[in-house]
């Protein structure tokens, strides 16, 4: 990782992160402080690989129990990291603007929208996606309940609904159907399976299984 920027900065030393890199690449020094440096690099005829390296930073994050050491552009969202780079496509892109909940994952145990989470901000975090919910071949009780109650049609919002539903119970917001409806309202289902989804969550909650 020595040739990658590392974003952690000591106090009052906000320029330090790039030094390791710049030391190695004096050619970059001429425009190192120009923010969209990669574009400048290309405009100045520099080789693409240099631009690529310049844009990438290191990230350590644990995803579904596996420690990952990655190099990514800071503008990559957690959602696109999962889907386009790690082939964890169970997490869905439904709007890309935090307006539908299809991308819901757990970061350090809380449900968040992966589309508005820059992957870099998950440094040192534990991320759980739908792929990490089941225990091997044994489905999580919420997954079982969604099948039993037919809590979906097209299935596209389903991983986000399930991740949200698990969190809804863990947060203590699944005591009655109305509370579930309110606390699940951040997950849009265009097929309109809400009635069955509420039944599925109530079933798991009342079943008392560990979620």
């Amino acid at each position, binding site marked *: 990782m020595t040739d990658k920027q590392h974003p952690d900065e000591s106090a009052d030393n906000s320029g330090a992160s790039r030094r390791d890199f710049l030391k190695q690449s004096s050619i970059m020094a001429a425009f190192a402080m120009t923010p969209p440096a990669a574009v400048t690099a290309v405009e100045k005829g520099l080789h693409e690989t240099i631009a690529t390296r310049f844009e990438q930073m290191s990230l350590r994050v644990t995803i579904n129990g596996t420690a990952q050491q990655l190099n990514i552009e800071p503008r990559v969202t957690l959602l696109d990291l999962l889907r386009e780079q790690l082939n964890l496509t*169970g997490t869905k892109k439904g709007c890309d603007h935090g307006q539908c909940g299809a991308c819901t994952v757990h970061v350090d145990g809380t449900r968040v929208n992966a589309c508005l989470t820059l992957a870099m901000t998950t440094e040192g975090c534990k991320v759980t996606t739908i792929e990490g919910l089941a225990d091997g071949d044994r489905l999580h009780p919420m*997954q079982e309940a969604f099948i039993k109650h037919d809590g979906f049609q097209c299935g596209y919002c389903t991983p986000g609904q399930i991740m949200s539903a698990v969190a809804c119970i863990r947060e203590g917001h699944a005591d009655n159907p109305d509370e579930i409806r309110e606390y699940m309202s951040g997950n849009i289902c265009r097929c309109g399976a809400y009635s069955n989804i509420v039944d599925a969550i109530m079933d798991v909650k009342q079943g008392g299984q560990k979620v």
Partner: protein
Amino acid sequence: MTKDTKNPPIDRVDGRMKVTGGAKYFAEFTMPSMTYCVIVSSDIAKGSIASIDTKKAENAPGVVGVFTHQNMPAIPGWDAPAQGNGNGPPPGPPSGGEKYRILHTKEILFDGQPIAMVVADTFERATYAASLVKATYTKQTARTDLTKHLADGVTPKGERAADYVRGTADGYKTAPVTLEANYTIPIEVHNPMEMHGILAHWEGDDKLMIYAKTQGVKATQRAMAQAFKINPDNIRVHTEFMGGGFGMALRTWPQETAVVAISRKIGRPVKLVMTRSQMFTLVGHRPRTVQTINMGADTNGKLVGIAHAATGETASYEDFTEGTVNMTKFMYDCPNVSTRYKIVPLDRGVPIWMRGPGEATGAFALESAMDEMAHKLNLDPIEFRLRNYTETDPEHNRPYSDKNLKEAYQRGADAIGWNKRSNQPSSNRDGEWLIGYGMSSGTFNASRGQATARAILNADGSLTVQCGVTDIGPGSGTAMAMIAHNVLGVPVDKIKVEYGDTSLPNAPMQGGSTITSTVGSAVYDVCTTVKNTLADMATKSGSPLANSKANDLTLADGMLYLEADRSKKVAVADLMRSNNLPAIDKTQQSKGGSEGEKYSMYSFSVHFVQVRVHPVTGVVRVSKAVSVADSGRIVSPNTAASQMIGGVAGGIGMALTEEAVIDHRFGRYINNNLADYHVATSADVPHTETIVIDKPDPYINPMGAKGMGEIALIGFAAAVSNAVFNATGQRIRDLPITPDKVMQKLV
């Protein structure tokens, strides 16, 4: 099992894939050296591109290509002259000739029209490079407001859209009680959760692999074969899972074809995933429609006449039509009926059928007017409908194949507690909240088309059923498994259903509520052929059931029985082994006969709601919903019920929250996102009770099953509007019924 037997509920066959994230949608396939395409959309709605600067984008990191009207690769099938028209044919849009060609000229015909497509090696880089494309425009005034241009309405070509008269066109005028009312619905947008796009890869000069978001893989295959002048057999289209469609993927959109052309040009796979905002402009919408109903009835509550006029929007470059006024022609016993349907070409992207297409629009008007007339007559709205009930189709003068609407009214009324409703509006309160009840009915054509299915029965008793249909969510695969199970007795968990790929046998698009009838019949027929093959073997001389008749045999749990004496039996596996057959593999085409000419075939629905209205703030909440479906034999009860609760959620959105708004000064949407375009949330939808009549239609197909998808929505918005009237005494005739409209009526 026969169609006289009700089907047990079974779990969705693809449920496990969907709850584990294992189901792969088009954008989730990946290929070596795959590239990402991002569309740059026009900022204006009408005019032309004065200049377009792509240099910065081309030089941005990772960019593989920037395509505009200046360098868009040719689409050979579009460039060929056809029918003497030098402009080249479009890729077969369903409703007529297309003049709009993507990235073809500098002309801008609608807001959001692609002006460039940028391809790069990562999604982030393509998106950023797209932002660097800068265009200037020569603007013209865009005509986008239907209301302002109603006078420009034209009657579309074709028999189906022609004016209709039964009896006297304005016979309603002679009635002692009359009403005239205008109803409007706004632009609604399908907004399936999965965004549209395509992943295309040329595996050879004339060999194409496509992962698509389409409601018909075969249709996409045909469109691409035509566009690129290659043999359809060299094109494979795969859509096993699709994240909802609701009609928006009933055609191959120009940007899909463009991606395929670009992929060929750059020699790399290209993936396009559109943005949510582009879902508003590039893949159709439900058109804004203005309707007028004139209705007359006598004092006994008998309809004298109905005149229904509807005007909807279309694009300047293509006619779009739908069956907005259809229902009025046949729903009620009425001697004088006239309908008129017009479209107004506007500077807008072309609409496309959205769930319960025109019928949902028309039913809002007709079923609201029925409620208004019932009120004028001081009749219960159900009673008014019963007084005008018809057992024969007055439009075609022939019997319905099956109609159980009276039973549906009764069961729905019992379930919602209709007896708690007062016919006097605004008379039911719970604290500050006004309570109201409303109902309405819906109907949609039921039909059986043509499809081919393949069934492979293996010696181990397992069965594979194949058909190239797309399952966009309603559970077609589950229905196919149930039907195969019913014919062949193979346990559902031993049946593998394969669909959503052009390598499988031919099937129509998933749309118009026809798949269970059409594909289900093909599955029924091919499984019957498999069963007959078994029966032939079993009844040959020397076989265990020799001398029995094939019709007297029953299949269950891997055994073939003589129905009359179940001690006489043979294991299917033994039978196949003794005939040296590793499998029985049959493919069969299947279609209906002339039954559609003898009978009018429709599915029917009745919707009941209870609403709570807060008069001070205008807030409306649907507090109870009951939907009843009369759609023949229910093949898969779980997935059918899910379609019904989905119709309720969609109907609540249509009634209360959904409206795509245009600022006509710019001709642009101003709420093209899911925060401002309000699809119903979980909190908007109450517990929903679904009731199915579940009686087989005697004629339509071997299962007696009709469609569900459309009727689940059609009419629902009127039930809500009628309930709001019952709660408040105020009628809101333009959807959606938002708090501001309600509150202002009640001040």
